[in-house]
Each structure stands twice: as structure tokens, then as C-alpha cells.
């Protein structure tokens, strides 16, 4: 129950005036705060890094877009591989997983030095005076170096000591799964040993990238598409990006 006593309680009286001394103090405080906080405001770290990364990627792509050669982008952040020319995406592959290990890498064009595989596909030699294509024949035997002849497990060796291994998603078959477990164990045990070896013995930077694609056809198509000598840009995970003389404020 409410009583009239509660309603009629007196409020504490407000001060009748503010001294000029207090006003000056207040203005002084505002000025100090403006100088210390307002004058030099820093951009959040995340935004700054995004802008720097974008700049580096644009610089690298612009350099490649000037010539007629195709180039590829291995984007470890978005988990995709792009085949591009003149800034235009010609083909895109989504990856099931991408893993990174080793030294930071620069966001600059790097040459694909070699495609390494256990069984390199071989081109067929045409025997002169050989077959002639049969018009509309379903039985015509095709002697060709096609995508199906390409390997599905291989390593791309890219300039600057970068090894990109490409394989397919493990199949449901027992031995394929077993092999996949073996590859996973290898991924977690071999790179640390190599890191120590490289650090103290070879003294060369090295980076390993493991890419798993959806199926065999995708892996073969990638092998087909990558050509030795082509330029690649690798977008590494944020923590592994190396800056080469980058000045955020200058040119």
C-alpha cells in the first residue's frame, strides 16, 4: 500500500550556481581529451590488415594482368583456386580443405617451377600412315592425351620453397580411408621435423600447403590446367603473410 508520505518526500535541492572555476576545468578537460584521443585516431587492426592485404593482392594481379599469360590464385583464406586472365575469373575450384605449414609467404606473383607426380602422364606418338578418324563412328579408338590421363595426387613446386600437394577427398573404400589416415599422420608429424631441419641445416625457408579437392576429376583438371612456368599468387592465412617493404602510407 502506498501512503501519502512516500509521495511527498522532498528531493535534494540542486546547486543554485556553477562556479566559473568549474567551467574552466571542464573546458580544459575537453581540450585535453580532444588532443589525446581525437587528433590521432587509429583504425581497428582488422580493417587495416584487410586494406593492406587487398592492396597487395591488387598490386600483384595488376602486374600479371599486363601480359597475356594466364595465372592462378590459390586462396587459402577462401579455400578456392582461381584460374584468371586480365583480372577475369576463367574457372574456379572450391576446395574441401586447405592446410598451411611453414614460413610466411609474400603476396606476390610466384612461378610454378614444377609439377611433381609419381606417374607422369605420357604423350602418345603418332605412327605415320596410321589410323584415320572414322566419321561418326562410336567404336573409333581415341589416342589422346586427355584429362583422364592426368594424376589425381601430385605436388606443385612453386618458387620460394613452396610445395603445394593436391589430393582428393578420401573415398569410402577401406584402403583409401587407411591411406588418408596415413597422409594425415604424415601431415602432423613430418612438417615439424622438416621445420627443424630447414632451420638449422638447410637454412632455407620452406612452406607446405595441403589441398584436398572434391573428387578425382577436379584434381585431374587442376593438373591439366596448371602449366609449368605459369605465375601463381598464393593468398596465405593472415598469420602467415609476409610483407616485403610495405609502407601503408606511401607508394
Amino acid at each position, binding site marked *: 500500500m502506498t501512503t501519502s508520505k512516500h509521495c511527498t518526500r522532498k528531493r535534494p535541492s540542486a546547486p543554485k550556481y556553477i562556479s566559473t572555476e568549474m567551467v574552466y576545468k571542464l573546458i580544459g578537460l575537453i581540450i585535453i581529451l580532444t588532443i589525446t584521443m581525437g587528433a590521432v585516431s587509429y583504425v581497428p587492426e582488422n580493417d587495416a*590488415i584487410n586494406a593492406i592485404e587487398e592492396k597487395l593482392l591488387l598490386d600483384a594481379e595488376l602486374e600479371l594482368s599486363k601480359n597475356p599469360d594466364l595465372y592462378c590464385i590459390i586462396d587459402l583464406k577462401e579455400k578456392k583456386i582461381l584460374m584468371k*586472365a586480365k583480372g577475369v575469373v576463367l574457372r574456379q575450384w572450391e576446395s574441401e580443405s586447405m592446410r598451411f605449414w611453414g614460413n610466411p609467404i609474400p603476396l606476390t606473383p610466384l612461378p610454378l617451377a614444377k609439377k611433381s607426380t609419381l606417374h607422369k602422364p605420357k604423350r602418345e606418338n603418332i605412327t605415320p600412315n596410321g589410323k584415320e578418324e572414322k566419321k561418326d563412328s562410336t567404336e573409333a579408338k581415341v589416342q589422346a592425351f586427355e584429362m583422364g590421363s592426368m594424376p589425381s595426387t601430385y605436388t606443385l613446386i612453386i618458387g620460394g620453397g613452396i610445395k603445394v600437394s593436391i589430393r582428393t577427398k578420401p573415398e569410402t573404400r577401406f584402403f583409401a580411408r587407411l591411406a588418408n589416415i596415413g597422409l594425415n599422420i604424415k601431415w602432423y608429424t613430418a612438417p615439424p621435423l622438416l621445420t*627443424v631441419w630447414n632451420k638449422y641445416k638447410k637454412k632455407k625457408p620452406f612452406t607446405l600447403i595441403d589441398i584436398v579437392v572434391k573428387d578425382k576429376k577436379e584434381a585431374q583438371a587442376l593438373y591439366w590446367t596448371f602449366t609449368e612456368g605459369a605465375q601463381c599468387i598464393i593468398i596465405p592465412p593472415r598469420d*602467415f603473410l609476409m610483407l616485403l617493404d610495405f609502407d*601503408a602510407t606511401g607508394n
Partner: protein
Amino acid sequence: MPKGKKILIILLIFVGFLLFIFTALEITGYYLNAGNRSFWRNYLKDQKIDTDAYNQLLKRNESLKKKMAGYSPKGVYLVIDTAYNLIYLRKGTVTLRQATVSCGSGNLLEDLQGNRRWVFDTPRGEFAVQSKLRDPVWIKPDWAFIEEGKEIPPKQSDERIEEGVLGEYALGFGDGYFIHGTLYTRMLGRNVTHGCIRVGDDDLKALYKEATVGTKIYIY
């Protein structure tokens, strides 16, 4: 202590030692790799980016994007996927038409003397339509005669002229390479050509209509 037990203990100690070394190396490797990660944190500790520098950076990125856009093809362009034997007619990022084609077989041919060698690959990279031909005739090159085991006729010989094998239209993109028609339509989707790109009749007609001299062709 029996000898067998002694050996077992020594063996266990040895394996334990190896495991210890292995674990130590693994931990060192993981530790060294973790050291690689701290790059950005160190960089931004030294070089804070203020609002002005950030805005400048964004402006520069925009101008770089504009520059990039200047290099990309204007109007329609052709994209050829030699792995899947597909051709795309595109405008910007939109695909206007897609068709199955036949690209280079990648086979090798050598003349009997071993002086000359051909690799029947479709070339890769950026090209442009250089010529548009109606009812093209095929001027057979030397390799065609070598492949058939025939004598190579002189350059201007009529023996070199073959009509009707390239379809109704052809788009030349340099070095004797053409996008043309085919009699072997069942082979579309397979890599069977000597480097040219064979297209089915309807698709070829559409491509011929859309492409002009200068239209860009990207082959990968």
C-alpha cells in the same frame, strides 16, 4: 638377470630414447612454426595505421581496381576449357552460351627423318579473333601428309586444298589455329584435334555471329 631380459630392457631404453628425441624434435618444430605466426601482431605494433593513412589506402585500392577493370575484355569474349572440352561465350561475368568442343589431342608426330616434331596441343593463353571465314577450305599443312604417310606436295599445290572439312564457318586466332566446324560430331567432348577447336554446327553459327575480329579468346 637372464640375458634375454637384459636385451629387452636395453631395447626398451633405446626405443624410449628414440621416442624422446622424436618428441623433442616435434615440439621444437611446432614451436618454431608458431613463431612464424606472429608477423602481423609485430608489424602493427611498430606501425599503427591512422585514419588518414587508412583512407588513402582505400582510395589507392579503388584506383587499382579501376586500372584492373581496364585490362579486362570489353564486350563478348570466348573462354575455352581444354580439360573439359567446353567453350563459353561470355559478357562480363555472364555466360551467354556454352558448348561442347574438341581440343588438341596432345599427341606427338615426327617426320621420318626425325628433323621435325609436332605436338598437337591447343595453345593456351590470351588470343583474339584475327579472321572470320565463311565456307573455309583447309590448306593441309605438312604434318597432315606425314601423318597419312604420303609424299609432301609443294606449297602451292592443289593437293593441299580440302573443302568441306572445316564446316560452314571458321574463326582464326593466329598461327594456323581456328575455331571451326567438324564432320566428327561424335568426337565432341574428346581431345582429338591437331590443336584447332572443333565446334558443332549450331554452336559454331552462334559464335560466328557474336564474335568480331578482335574478340578476345582465353584458352586454359
